[in-house]
């Protein structure tokens, strides 16, 4: 999975079947994707799908409860909240991707959270659907947040993922469009290529060396 879309919603959540998504992704230059709502990971054609689970919670306890139901999912994504919640889940819960950072306030993801994300191998998602489909103040706020996240990523080295959040065929974008929109969001070329390959890296994290006696 050299290039992967970090979040798509195939049928029945969206209106595109998984096989059709595979065709379209292959045509647009992708080799993988994280699909929310599919029972298990699979490979169709040359496209590898990882099953994803999304958790939206207000507290660490409810997040942990929801995590028990997602044991079959390959990738667990948790929606970000305020600074206290983000630090709590980054410190206590094992998950892969922090989503929806653009909906939170400015201080929700700071240098402390960034350092924790780097240590725990958690990626922060940049949802391009906010740039694509929104406009005006909402898009400006999203871009502002994404630029801040990309700056923190450059400094602290946590992973980024890029997602289209597509629920329909019209929501899918090509790798080229991901690169261009990623640059609008403040990512440089190397960050974009790292973000596109991040879902594969999440599956095989680099763990620190353990000394066994």
């Amino acid at each position, binding site marked *: 999975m050299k290039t992967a879309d970090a979040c798509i919603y195939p*049928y029945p959540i969206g*209106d*595109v*079947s998984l*096989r*059709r998504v595979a*065709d379209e992704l292959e045509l*647009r230059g992708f080799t993988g994707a994280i699909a929310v709502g599919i029972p298990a990971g699979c490979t169709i054609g040359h496209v590898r799908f990882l099953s994803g689970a999304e958790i939206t919670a207000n507290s660490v306890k409810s997040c942990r409860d929801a995590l028990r139901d997602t044991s079959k999912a390959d990738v667990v994504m948790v929606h970000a909240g305020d600074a206290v919640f983000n630090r709590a889940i980054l410190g206590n819960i094992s998950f892969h991707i922090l989503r929806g950072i653009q909906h939170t306030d400015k201080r929700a993801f700071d240098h402390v959270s960034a350092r924790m994300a780097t240590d725990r191998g958690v990626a922060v998602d940049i949802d391009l659907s906010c*740039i*694509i*489909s929104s*406009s*005006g103040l909402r*898009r400006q706020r999203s871009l502002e947040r994404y630029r801040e996240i990309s700056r923190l990523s450059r400094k602290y080295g946590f992973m980024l993922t890029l997602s289209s959040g597509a629920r*329909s*065929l*019209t*929501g*899918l*974008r*090509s790798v*080229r*469009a991901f690169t*261009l*929109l990623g*640059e*609008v969001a403040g990512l440089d070329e190397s960050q974009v290529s790292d973000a596109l390959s991040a879902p594969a890296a999440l599956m095989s994290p680099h763990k620190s060396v353990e000394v066994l006696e």
Partner: protein
Amino acid sequence: MKPLPPTQRPNWRYIAAEMVPQWCPASARDMHYAILACEASLLGDSMSAFMRTSVVSCDGGVIIVRCIRGTERDVETALATVTEAGGVRVALHPFATSGTIHGIRKKFRPCSLPSDEGNCKIGENTYRILRISGQKVDLVQQGIKQTTALYVNTDDLEDF
């Protein structure tokens, strides 16, 4: 009026983009307004005016967009943010850039237009089958208020 000599004419570039879905009924005028709105929204009126984008043609599921040379990257970024044209949801995927319309037409991929193949019933909904080239099948439900689409493959159609 005497035409401008070639050296004084603007250097145009032509970008071909695939429309998804191919059966999108939006006209060139709708596309033009949609693209200009996206450009102005993303890059600002000043940059939008500098790019001088216009839609040259829009048929067969492919549009050709004209812009000033050097602004292709910005135009492609703006095309990636197009989500609707003429009240219909659409996506544009640029696939070729050239300095002449003749040159860009050489890069067109041959694609067959969708053919109408009756109806199918999924649950309580009846969809019209539009078969696209290869294994792609678009199911379209024409409602009073809106058109609902379901995008599947021939294999999925057998499963349903």
